[in-house]
């Protein structure tokens, strides 16, 4: 603490100190000395000449001092906590730049008290605005899963901030408070006032502070250390909603699990979730219902018993009647924390999934072709409305132009991948397509392993030698390996079931390693992986270590073959329906060439409207929305229909963090740790905030004092010059 210069680059101006000296030297007249007899009578006395030189020197020094003072004034000298700041602080109060950070998390919607923490925070913010002077600037940001800038850059128009406070969307999801504080501090780097403050208005919930992440808080310290002491921002945290009465229990719905996001019309979709109790001391019955596209279904309401601080499983089944995307929500009757009483997802119903079966072992006798059983399973004659539209093509007639029209591509016993497929297949999968590779007697393991390493289009490398077992030694699927995966439904042992199939041949698979490690979805009883799945972009990949037909296993002869094949194909096609995403991930929708982006708008939570952007991928044009920090339901609608409030919509859901339901408060020890080194000050109410502001170290700039001194010295220069003129050194204009 002490005197500092806030604008040190201005010190380069000190080079101007040389200007008075240069001006003096350059304006000296050059005379030719001519000695003549009467010269001795005209020369000044020696003392007088010395006096002239001294006065000239004083004038030069004075002029250099003037330049120096001007430079120092421009460099913005400031004093913090020094005698000058204290003295000037009594004369005037320096201006403030304030960034108000409002916690936008779901817990701010707690209704167990007189008012919600959100309402208390907004009221608090209004009182802070009343305390600000006309030159004080204010910015407003909301801490959500990411940082949502509401008023940025800071403004001196406080009415603008008041209006924005009244239009904040309802709280929901989690809040990244450290990120919001860091953003606020970075905003204050661009402001000009001496006193800079961040005011965080939250509810005292521990979740969202990330107190255990020391590196994160060290970064904030580094950011603060980058400021001069005089402008170092002060971070104050106020918890106007505290103390919260958390004795009343509340319940939340866990994220929904749907068997698949892409479903064929007419096939029932299973929706599973859990109702979790918090603070209920006894078993409590809660009503829970299913909503489809905003309509609660009367015949899909259950009553579940939630044990003390326990959970109860809930499952609904629903047959979607129309094609297109549909918004599904499992909803609890409202409690003290309404933000987590519902959990949502989106499923897309389609008429039939287009599947391209690439036969790597075609045969003139169709029954002996590699894809014979698969094609038969996918187009059962008894099914009037097939869920899969399968098309078979021989591997040597496959064209990359076939890819975009497919939802899933199955490469069945193809000897080796054609390098020409790499680019179009990568684009196809990254855009959400599914790729299944099944192996067999034609497989070239080295070629496929190289393909896996170089393209990532195969989630596993293939061993050199296939395994085999004959007769009674044939192996079955380890039913335990199916638990916990989307194949769990095939784990039950029954007549004709998946686990009854016997495998006589398989290729050993070695799942690739990396950040997005593949997953082994099924294992044979001998421990060899049977099905390995992976991701690439938005799409899914899978490799089946045995044959698709009955050459190496008896699965095609089992009734479960049909349902297994459908299940795996719809799983692989799931990437095409990425309508349920986490906050911060963009919403993407593939659109046709005739789609006009400016004619559509996205309506989000609370009726907020968002403009969509045009984007493109290898699979074609996209409509894209990047601003996805608010959890909840979003609908893409034609702009003209939104004005009438109706219309067919493309649905999306941004999920909320279920951990937000944990209302544990920030412990005192944690507060002390966060406040270490004066990083943060916690205040309970507005009076404490005022006291904290009043007790903060005085800060002031005193450039105007330096300019006053400059003015005084300028007066001195005038006086000295005048004395030189009056002293007889006047330039005789007539003589010149």
């Amino acid at each position: 603490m002490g005197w500092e210069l806030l604008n040190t680059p201005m010190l380069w101006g000190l080079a101007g100190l040389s200007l008075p000296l240069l001006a003096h030297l350059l304006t000296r007249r050059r005379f030719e000395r001519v000695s003549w007899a009467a010269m001795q009578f005209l020369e000044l006395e020696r003392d007088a000449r010395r006096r002239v030189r001294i006065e000239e020197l004083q004038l030069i020094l004075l002029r250099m001092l003037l330049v120096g003072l001007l430079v120092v004034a421009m460099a913005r000298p400031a004093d913090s906590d020094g005698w000058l700041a204290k003295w000037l602080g009594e004369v005037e109060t320096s201006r403030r730049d304030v960034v108000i950070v409002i916690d936008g998390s779901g817990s701010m919607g707690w209704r167990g008290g007189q008012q919600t923490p959100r309402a208390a925070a907004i009221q608090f913010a209004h009182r802070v605005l009343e305390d600000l002077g006309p030159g004080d600037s204010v910015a407003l940001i909301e801490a959500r899963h990411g940082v949502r800038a509401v008023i940025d850059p800071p403004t001196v128009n406080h009415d603008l901030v008041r209006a924005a406070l009244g239009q904040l969307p309802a709280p929901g999801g989690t809040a990244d408070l450290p990120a919001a504080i860091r953003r606020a501090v970075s905003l204050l780097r661009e402001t000009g006032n001496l006193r800079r403050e961040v005011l965080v208005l939250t509810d005292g919930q521990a979740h969202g502070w990330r107190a255990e992440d020391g590196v994160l808080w060290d970064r904030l310290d580094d950011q603060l250390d980058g400021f001069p002491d005089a402008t170092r921002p002060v971070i104050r945290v106020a918890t106007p909603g505290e103390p919260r009465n958390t004795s009343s229990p509340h319940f939340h719905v866990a994220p929904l699990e749907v068997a698949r996001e892409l479903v064929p019309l007419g096939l029932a979709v299973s929706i599973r979730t859990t109702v979790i109790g918090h603070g209920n001391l006894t078993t409590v019955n809660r009503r829970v219902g299913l909503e489809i596209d905003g309509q609660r279904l009367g015949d899909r309401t259950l009553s579940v018993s939630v044990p003390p601080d326990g959970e109860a499983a809930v499952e609904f089944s629903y047959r979607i009647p129309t094609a297109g995307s549909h918004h599904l929500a499992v909803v609890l009757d409202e409690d003290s924390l309404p933000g987590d009483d519902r959990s949502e997802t989106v499923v897309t119903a389609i008429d039939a999934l287009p599947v391209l079966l690439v036969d790597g072992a075609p045969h003139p006798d169709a029954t002996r072709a590699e894809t014979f059983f698969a094609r038969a399973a996918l187009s059962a004659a008894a099914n009037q409305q097939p869920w899969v539209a399968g098309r078979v093509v021989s591997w040597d007639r496959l064209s990359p132009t076939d890819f975009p029209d497919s939802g899933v591509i199955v490469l069945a016993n193809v000897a080796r991948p054609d390098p020409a497929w790499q680019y179009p297949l990568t684009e196809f999968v990254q855009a959400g397509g599914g790729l299944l590779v099944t192996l067999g007697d034609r497989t070239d393991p080295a070629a496929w392993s190289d393909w896996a390493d170089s393209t990532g289009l195969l989630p596993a490398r293939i061993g050199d030698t296939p395994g085999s077992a004959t007769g009674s030694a044939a192996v079955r699927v380890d039913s335990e390996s199916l638990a916990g995966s989307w194949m769990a439904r095939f784990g039950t042992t029954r007549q004709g079931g998946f686990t009854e199939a016997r495998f006589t041949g398989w290729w050993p698979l070695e799942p690739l390693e990396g950040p997005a490690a593949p997953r082994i979805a099924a294992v044979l009883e001998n421990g060899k992986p049977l099905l390995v799945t992976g991701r690439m972009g938005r799409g899914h990949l899978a490799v089946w270590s045995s044959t698709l037909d009955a050459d190496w296993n008896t699965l095609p002869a089992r009734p479960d073959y049909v349902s297994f094949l459908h299940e795996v194909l719809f799983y692989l096609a799931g990437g095409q329906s990425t309508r349920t995403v986490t906050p911060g991930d963009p919403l993407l929708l593939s659109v046709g060439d005739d789609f006009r982006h400016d004619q559509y708008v996205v309506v989000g939570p609370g009726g907020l409207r968002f403009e969509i952007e045009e984007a493109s991928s290898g699979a074609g044009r996209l409509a894209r929305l990047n601003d996805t920090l608010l959890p909840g339901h979003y609908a893409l609608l034609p702009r003209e229909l939104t004005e009438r409030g109706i219309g067919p919509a493309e649905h999306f859901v941004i999920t909320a963090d279920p951990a937000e339901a944990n209302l544990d408060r920030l412990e005192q020890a944690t507060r002390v740790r966060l406040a270490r080194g004066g990083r943060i000050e916690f205040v309970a109410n507005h009076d404490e905030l005022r006291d904290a502001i009043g007790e903060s170290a005085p800060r002031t700039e005193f450039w105007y004092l330096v300019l006053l001194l400059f003015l005084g010295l300028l007066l001195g220069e005038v006086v000295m010059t005048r004395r030189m003129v009056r002293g007889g050194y006047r330039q005789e204009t007539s003589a010149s």
Partner: protein
Amino acid sequence: MNHRLLFHVLDSPARLVLGGLAVLAAVVLVVRLLQFERQLMPHAASRWLLGLRLSVIVLL
């Protein structure tokens, strides 16, 4: 970091009057200085010095 000097002279009438007086005083002093310097040196040189002073301010 904002490198601009912040002039709050418009915040209150008193500041406005004081700021105006300071600027006026500076202008008067510079004019007087110019007049005296014209008596000490050729007009061209005095104008050159004035230009130098003003350019320093503008550059800063």
